[in-house]
């Protein structure tokens, strides 16, 4: 494995140790060294925004901690859900007295650990509500959306929830807005090359040269099909064929488009994929209000991209335009 590592079992600890040094003006540690918070959190009188998940998805999850974004994050081992204690400590670090919104992705481990953490928070009198992101269309068939996993769409959920909380909304209003955001979001991934967890030492899944895995999950969970690698324009057509009918996205809709590299795909190629998707959306009369292209939600050194679309209404637009400052996403007031 061609990696910069000391002790493979310590990669998350060393990464976080460095992270808080590099971004000392934005984030700080808590007594739990796997829970990182926004420097000024808990922000009195603001609904706290918490998330968490396995590491290895930089900038997610810790990269979205910041001003008007996530207040505190629980960082698990690589691709492994953080234990209940971490979620609970993150809830405490974010609790500004107006309740905490826990916005995370739909994974078995996360669901169990979040459930236990929320029980403990309830015992301590902290009101916590959750939104579970399920934007990964290929991870479960139409009609079984509740089983779908959460991928890059989580970022838009955090952006909306973070902005809503910053505007002084109540916990219920923040939850409602974040829920609406993810409810209107659909994603799909295409994988071109696998990744290896440092401690495991070799990839857990393979993608042969000349092949691609359509609908792959971002821990390499199997997708819809493995087929020959196609030109970007054809792949863009596949993204739209799966995503557009699922919501559905219709002519006249205004959307946010977020193309995220999975880690080792050059950003140049990600722009090429965006270009092909933009042409299809234009043909279908779907207007792009705002777009993001870059490594927003990765999976170690996987090659590939995920394409995420969110249908907008006035409230979601206001939240997307709202100023925020985090490592993963910075936005001057639009």
């Amino acid at each position, binding site marked *: 494995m061609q990696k910069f590592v000391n002790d493979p079992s310590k990669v998350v600890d060393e990464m976080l140790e460095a992270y808080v040094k590099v971004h000392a003006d934005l984030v700080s540690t808590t007594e739990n060294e796997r829970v990182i918070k926004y420097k000024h959190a808990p922000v009195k009188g603001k609904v706290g925004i918490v998330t968490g998940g396995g590491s290895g998805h930089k900038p997610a999850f810790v990269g979205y901690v910041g001003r008007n974004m996530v207040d505190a994050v629980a960082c698990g081992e690589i691709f492994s859900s953080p234990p209940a204690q971490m979620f609970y400590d993150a809830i405490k670090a974010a609790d500004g007295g107006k309740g905490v919104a826990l916005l995370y992705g739909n994974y078995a481990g996360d669901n169990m650990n979040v459930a236990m953490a929320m029980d403990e928070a309830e015992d301590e009198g902290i009101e916590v509500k959750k939104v579970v992101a399920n934007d990964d269309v290929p991870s479960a068939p139409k009609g079984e959306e509740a089983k779908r996993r959460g991928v890059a769409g989580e970022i838009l959920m955090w952006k909306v929830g973070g902005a809503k909380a910053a505007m002084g909304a109540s916990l219920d209003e923040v939850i409602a807005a974040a829920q609406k955001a993810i409810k209107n979001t659909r994603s799909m991934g295409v994988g071109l090359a696998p990744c290896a967890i440092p401690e*495991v030492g070799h990839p*857990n899944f393979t993608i042969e040269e000349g092949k691609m895995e359509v609908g792959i999950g971002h821990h390499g*969970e199997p997708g819809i099909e493995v087929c020959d690698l196609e030109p970007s324009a054809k792949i863009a057509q596949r993204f739209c064929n799966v995503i557009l009918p699922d919501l559905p996205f219709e002519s006249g809709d205004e959307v946010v488009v977020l193309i995220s590299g999975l880690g080792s795909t050059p950003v140049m190629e990600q722009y090429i994929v965006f270009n092909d998707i933009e042409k299809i959306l234009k043909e279908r009369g779907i207007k792009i209000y705002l777009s993001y292209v870059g490594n927003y939600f990765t999976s170690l050194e996987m090659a590939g991209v995920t394409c995420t679309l969110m249908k907008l209404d006035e409230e979601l637009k206001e939240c997307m335009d709202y100023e925020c400052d985090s490592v993963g996403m910075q936005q001057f007031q639009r």
Partner: protein
Amino acid sequence: MKTFSNKEGALIIDKMILAIQENKQYLSDIDGLIGDGDHGINMNKGFTMCREELDNNPGDLAHSAKILSKILMMKIGGSMGPLYGKLYRGFASELSGKDEIGISEMGAALEGMLSSIQAISPAKPGDKTLIDTLVPAVEAFKKAQAEGKEFDVALDEMKAAAIVGRDSTKDMLAQLGRASRLGERSRGVLDAGATSCCLLLGVLADTSIELVK
């Protein structure tokens, strides 16, 4: 009446820790076939932390199981952290305050394992998870108990049932967790959680039998 003291019972957890440490690579390799290859790593990390804690804070079987539960739930995470965390918590709560552990105490403790894990996991027998080892093992023990068999015989039958349960996962189609997305491709491979559970129940049986002699 064959029993062993709660105090002596701490050896069971010591032996479980060793078994997990020795099988770290094996469990990860199995998980790697249809999962993300970290089951052995996750389990080893938790059980080794427990070793370190118990060295400074030793106690009886219930105490050791409680420490292991707390670490798995609070420190390990993933899907196995909460699952095995709840399993050991149910096991420990049934045994705490008991001086001697016999067939009825062990029966209650095994049922405690099952009920507390089923409280948070939607897994049912046939879903290709550790449940497919635990359910038959507990049923076999309770059956032996109901038939008035000796403690050590019940333990042996529990262990045998656990092995049958583990092996039954080979031809199952994963319904839960990472492997569930593999559909057909998840058949033909043992489930990692079912394997570790069988390993642990085996150690529970063997060490208890040794202590009861």
